[in-house]
């Protein structure tokens, strides 16, 4: 779909990141997602589109939610699934990343869904294998299917992202969700404001299509969506914030602060939440919170991505030609 420009991050043969994709690439995926969302609402939410294909989850870092979401998506497409997690692996025996990938490929995996703690690892794997690679989160870099499901969720509630004002609040520095979100939301026409203390922002925001604020109260009254990021408790030990208490006071979405959001503003969170840290439990459960929609849409978006990478027929109800 996108042309290869030295580093092919978009959906061409691989989905490595939102970086490198154009607005039409994103819109195409969201349109295809609509069809899979419909399939998801059927009594038997399963189509034969990827029968005979194999989707491997290759997770070097724990993430039950993302892995289950991808595996559910693969099964609804009738693909076979393989699961590799680092805990059960031979990496501890000194096997190299490249060997691991080649072994999994040799089991017939057509897609490698990769989660790794270091930025760029899926990009390296893509250079080594002829399988399709999907980035399911690489370190502090990107998490493209998360941004797609977030955009899909916003679009579901608002029709389009054009002109929306979206704040992403919290630990931007370490967040692959934020990096992919910034790119996807702004490509789709939203205005993004990053809200965080300076220590939790990337050292340079040169060329980022964002505004920056250190004052959530200052921006909250004019938002269409407030995206709260998970706050890792160890950031306090890293010396990046004085305490979780001060963080919650300044950047947490308390019930009281949430009242100042415009009436129809949406609240998003990539999950799992830290209730009482970045978001109050009652705010996460409130009607305007679309956190559970995000989870449900995740499966549809991932079905669309796997289908677009592997499906060779336009109709998901038909079986893709084995090739």
């Amino acid at each position, binding site marked *: 779909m996108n042309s290869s420009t030295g580093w092919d991050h978009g959906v061409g043969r691989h989905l490595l990141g939102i970086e490198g994709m154009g607005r039409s690439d994103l819109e195409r995926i969201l349109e295809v997602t609509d069809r899979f969302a419909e399939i998801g609402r059927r009594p038997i939410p399963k189509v034969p589109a990827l029968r005979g294909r194999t989707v491997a989850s290759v997770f070097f870092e724990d993430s039950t939610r993302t892995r289950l979401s991808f595996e559910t998506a693969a099964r609804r497409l009738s693909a076979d699934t393989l699961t590799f997690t680092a805990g059960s692996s031979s990496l501890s025996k000194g096997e190299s990343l490249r060997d691991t990938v080649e072994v999994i490929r040799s089991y017939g995996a057509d897609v490698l869904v990769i989660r790794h*703690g270091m930025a*760029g*690892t899926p990009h*390296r794997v893509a250079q080594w294998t002829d399988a399709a690679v999907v980035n399911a989160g690489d*370190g502090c870099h990107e998490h493209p299917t998360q941004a797609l499901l977030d955009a899909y969720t916003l679009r579901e509630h608002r029709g389009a992202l054009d002109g929306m004002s979206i704040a992403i609040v919290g630990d931007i520095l370490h967040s692959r969700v934020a990096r992919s979100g910034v790119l996807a939301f702004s490509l789709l026409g939203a205005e993004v404001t990053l809200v965080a203390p300076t220590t939790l922002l990337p*050292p340079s*925001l040169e060329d980022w299509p964002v505004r920056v604020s250190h004052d959530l109260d200052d921006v909250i009254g004019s938002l269409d969506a407030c995206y709260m990021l998970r706050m890792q408790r160890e950031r306090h030990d890293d010396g990046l914030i004085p305490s979780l208490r001060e963080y919650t006071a300044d950047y947490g979405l308390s019930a009281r602060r949430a009242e100042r959001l415009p009436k129809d503003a949406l609240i998003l969170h990539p999950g799992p939440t830290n209730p009482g840290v970045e978001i109050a439990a009652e705010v996460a459960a409130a009607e305007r919170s679309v956190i559970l929609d995000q989870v449900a849409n995740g499966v549809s978006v991932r079905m669309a991505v796997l289908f677009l990478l592997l499906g060779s027929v336009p109709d998901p109800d038909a079986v893709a030609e084995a090739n």
Partner: protein
Amino acid sequence: MGIVLRGGRVVDSDGESVVDVEIGDDGRIAAVGTGLVGEEDLDCAGCVVAPGLVDLHAHLRQPGDEEAETIETGARAGALGGYTALVAMPNTEPTTDCVAVVEQVRALGEPAACEIVPSAAMTVGRRGHQMTPMGELVDAGVGMFTDDGTGVQDPQVMRRLMEYSTGLTDRLGHPVVLAQHCEVTALSEGGYMHEGAWSSRLGIGGQPAEAEELMVMRDITLARMTGARIHFQHLSTGVSVAMVREAKAAGLPVTAEATTHHFTLTDAACACYDPVFKVHPPLRTDADVAAVRAGLADGTIDAIATDHAPHTVHAKERPFDQAPPGMLGLETALSLALEYSGLDLSGVLAALSWRPAAIAGLADRHGGPVRPSRPANLCVFDPDATWTVSGRAMASRSANTPYEGWSLRGRVRHTLNRGEPVVVDGEARR
């Protein structure tokens, strides 16, 4: 009567002239002139005949990591690159921090294609605490001390090292050189590339320029305090270059080197996530590259070094954070310097040959003018020959060159080590 280097243009610190050079059987230059007759001619037509190059900064990996490089293969790579002397870095396994390892490195270097000059660690195990037996090492002929790979973090330890080194001048015959890898690790920890726009975009932890600059600043201050002779390794930032410029203007006994990669590549190269571009100090910005070139141009930076750092394919296939830093340099340095340093031919040779020879205390046998009775450590290169870089084709045991596929100009034709042709027509003979 021996070998005659015929038809080349001799360029050395005295100037240049088109003359033949006759090498005597004693490994020294026998005669310089026209119409010389020898037993064997080496064709130097169209070539520059120059004093051999001297690298202040080579990781030869032996003892300890012979899978990546050995002294034999590293020296062969050096000879093919025009080098006649390599200062071997002490981050071996075990660390070169005592006379026994120094003697081992020197013995391994004896049959090699270049002179191997062992440097020694400043602190035991390069751990930054306890001084190595510097007096004993000086007596064994070591003139350069460095914990390269890491800088000495503790300012009190560094002060004591500087003070102690000043008392060894008479024993060595000239001042002991303390060569520092400037990096405050408290600031660089968790960083794998230059901290800036690219690291932010790529989601890779960054090493700020200030991690280098703070230690340059500290060591200039301590050099002023102690009078010690400091050499700054691989300067990579504009502010570092400016501080060294100022220190030299103030008359402090400091010298500096820059690597070829720090004036040819920027942090944008890391966008492909290939750790072949991971190096310490990291590749920096366009502005830093310009500052390094300006530092070379005005002599703030005395020498071009390689920081030749071989790593196996296996090691460089690790994720970016886990892959070891470093890149090959010996076989590409001369070409890159000729094309990208901004220096003229004489300036390139000064930075690659006679200035580093003086810094390493090798001026008696390397880098000197091409005159009768001087040791015949010479390189002959065709400044117009073009070639394409291929890691696999290199003599190094490793292939981690960041210049894969680059077309470069300037290629070594012959290299003479103590009169012996170790490279002839671009082929290694040792």
